[in-house]
């Protein structure tokens, strides 16, 4: 059975939590009811106008309960970084593949199931606070299937020495599966941390990953959040990321999308008190028939809050992209600054982008701007570079990389930058050759 009922039928197969708390049961029921009531979004739904999810609705997805995955294969796929790592295989936590050694002090990094089992009340305040069942049909579905995920709590004044690396692996199997992870990040006041959410998959994996993340950035906390999506080009990837920011907090998001058949990201930030700063950097690179949709929202709910957004889209072949960015400034949220920029590069005649910036401003003393451009590579520049001896692929690669540069240059994790560079530019000399140059220059 497919369609809404097909998804609901899977609820019975869902792994029960041991002694499921009643509020979780209630959430799951509310999610299921909501999903049943609204069904999958269609194009009449303004938020989904350009993204057709019927391929998801038509598919039957099972649930899995094992996290078997070859260690060596994982090593070859994951980022080579020194980090506190939690690994989920088709949504199932693998203690074996994870590595949390050395984690000490007022920090906890654990699978959601474990956190619920040990003290579910401590999870209750956060889970669902920013993303209730009514955000979207997929959020409702995620709530209905609440079971697993990651919860990271960073105590007051803790500066994490290493990033927290949340790795989600999607396996290729005979029948596709679905996973509905929930990620909760609590960055305590004055804490500093980097979180990396990384989605990868075996080639040909055609599963549905439907993740909801809720991030709480407390007073004066600094949180850098990478979301690197490198799933297979058959994967369905739906993500909702919700951020709540307190006074003097700084949140910086890198939403980097390279994979997926359909990849949809919703980012919603609530800037709730003065001097909260939110930076949204995004890059999506689609090829073949990939469809990449980014919907971002920043709500300036308080005066003197600041947001800065820069999204770059690169589309080749018959790929399609959607960018929808909302900057909302509440009444009386004076002296707000909100900048938004979206630039898109179409590498083929058949690639398409739909872009819609939206400004909703209800205060009068604000500084806001937005701009969106779509263009092609400058053929004169391609020629000029070839006329210096660079082959065409490298010339185009360098120019494409230059286009992505404004976003990539801000990426402070070299391994992430390198992956994106390689994907975007194809054959290129190593970034580190360039690094050498810069160092030799400065010496």
């Amino acid at each position, binding site marked *: 059975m497919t369609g809404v009922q097909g998804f609901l039928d899977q609820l019975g197969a869902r792994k029960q939590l041991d002694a499921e708390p009643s509020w979780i049961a209630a959430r799951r029921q509310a999610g299921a009811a909501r999903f049943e009531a609204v069904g999958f979004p269609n194009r009449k739904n303004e938020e989904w106008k350009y993204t057709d999810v019927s391929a998801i609705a038509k598919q039957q997805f099972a649930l899995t309960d094992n996290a078997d995955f070859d260690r060596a294969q994982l090593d070859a796929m994951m980022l080579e970084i020194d980090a506190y790592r939690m690994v989920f295989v088709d949504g199932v936590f693998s203690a074996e593949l994870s590595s949390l050694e050395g984690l000490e002090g007022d920090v906890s990094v654990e699978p959601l199931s474990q956190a619920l089992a040990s003290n579910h009340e401590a999870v209750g305040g956060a889970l669902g606070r920013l993303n209730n069942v009514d955000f979207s049909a997929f959020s409702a579905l995620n709530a209905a299937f609440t079971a697993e995920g990651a919860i990271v709590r960073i105590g007051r004044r803790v500066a994490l020495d290493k990033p927290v690396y949340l790795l989600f692996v999607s396996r290729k199997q005979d029948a596709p599966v679905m996973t509905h992870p929930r990620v909760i990040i609590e960055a305590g006041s004055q804490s500093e941390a980097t979180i990396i959410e990384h989605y990868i998959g075996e080639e040909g994996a055609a599963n549905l990953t439907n993740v909801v993340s809720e991030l709480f950035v407390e007073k004066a906390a600094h949180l850098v959040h990478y979301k690197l999506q490198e799933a297979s080009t058959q994967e369905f990837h739906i993500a909702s990321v919700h951020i709540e920011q307190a006074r003097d907090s700084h949140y910086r998001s890198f939403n980097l999308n390279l994979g997926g058949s359909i990849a949809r990201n919703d980012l919603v930030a609530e800037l709730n008190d003065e001097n909260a700063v939110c930076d949204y950097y995004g890059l999506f690179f689609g090829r073949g028939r990939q469809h990449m949709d980014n919907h971002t929202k920043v709500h300036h709910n308080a005066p003197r809050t600041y947001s800065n957004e820069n999204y770059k889209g690169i589309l080749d072949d018959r790929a399609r992209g959607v960018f929808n960015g909302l900057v909302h400034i509440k009444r009386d949220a004076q002296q707000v600054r909100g900048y938004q920029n979206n630039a898109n590069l179409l590498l083929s005649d058949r690639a398409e982008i739909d872009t819609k910036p939206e400004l909703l401003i209800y205060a009068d003393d604000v500084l806001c701007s937005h701009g969106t451009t779509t263009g092609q590579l*400058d053929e*004169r*520049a391609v*020629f*000029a*570079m*070839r*006329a*210096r*001896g*660079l*082959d*065409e692929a*490298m010339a185009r690669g*360098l*120019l494409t*990389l*230059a*286009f992505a*540069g*404004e976003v990539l240059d801000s990426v402070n994790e070299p391994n992430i930058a390198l992956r994106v560079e390689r994907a975007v530019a194809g054959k290129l*000399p190593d970034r580190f*050759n*360039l690094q*050498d*140059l*810069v*160092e*030799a*220059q400065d010496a």
Partner: protein
Amino acid sequence: MLEIKDLHASIDGTEILKGINLTINPGEVHAIMGPNGAGKSTLSAVLAGNEGYEVTQGTITFEGEDLLEMAVEDRARAGLLMGFQYPVEIPGVKNVYLLKAALNAQREARGEGEIPAPEFMKLVREKLAYMKMDNSFLQRAVNEGFSGGEKKRNEILQMLVLQPKLALLDEIDSGLDIDAMKVVSQGVNSLRSEDRSILMVTHYQRLLNHIEPDVVHILMDGRVVKSGDKTLATEVEDRGYDWLTEGSVA
């Protein structure tokens, strides 16, 4: 070095070059002069491999190879480099990166390995100093926001790093102040050697005082109507071009 025979080329169906013959031997410096619209830039573009032009007749041999069969990048790697009349801005691509990628492409074509970074930087700094450009130019995007004169210096800087066998310089003197003219000319002169050649397009005798040509050609309406030594340039400067067509008609 370079042999052009009966070259005809057109753009969008309009014939611009109407039978050019030109031979450049190793070590020679040739200058091409001629009125606006004569086809000087078209000739340079055809030599560099710009695909907007269609060669309808004739041959070009460069170092014994059929140049017209070579891709743009292969021409550059083989040592034929074009200094553009209007250098293109390449936002986001650092000058230093283009230089390094270009030099390595050339080395790779010769079967040599990548140049080590310190050696490369030493070379580039030396050439920068020669062109009286400061180091900050390396970290700037290629030609982006450069003044007209800086763009021309940058073209020569690339030549100095890449050491072409044949440098094609299209109006390298336009937009240069007197000091820049000296620097650019010095740069070009430093390229001169027994086995390197230069083909430069100019409107002014002034450049030729700095870079003395062995041969001067006058190009008019897609043909070389007269060739001679450097005194031809002085003559053109004094008398203009009309006498040449009158001469050829008579």
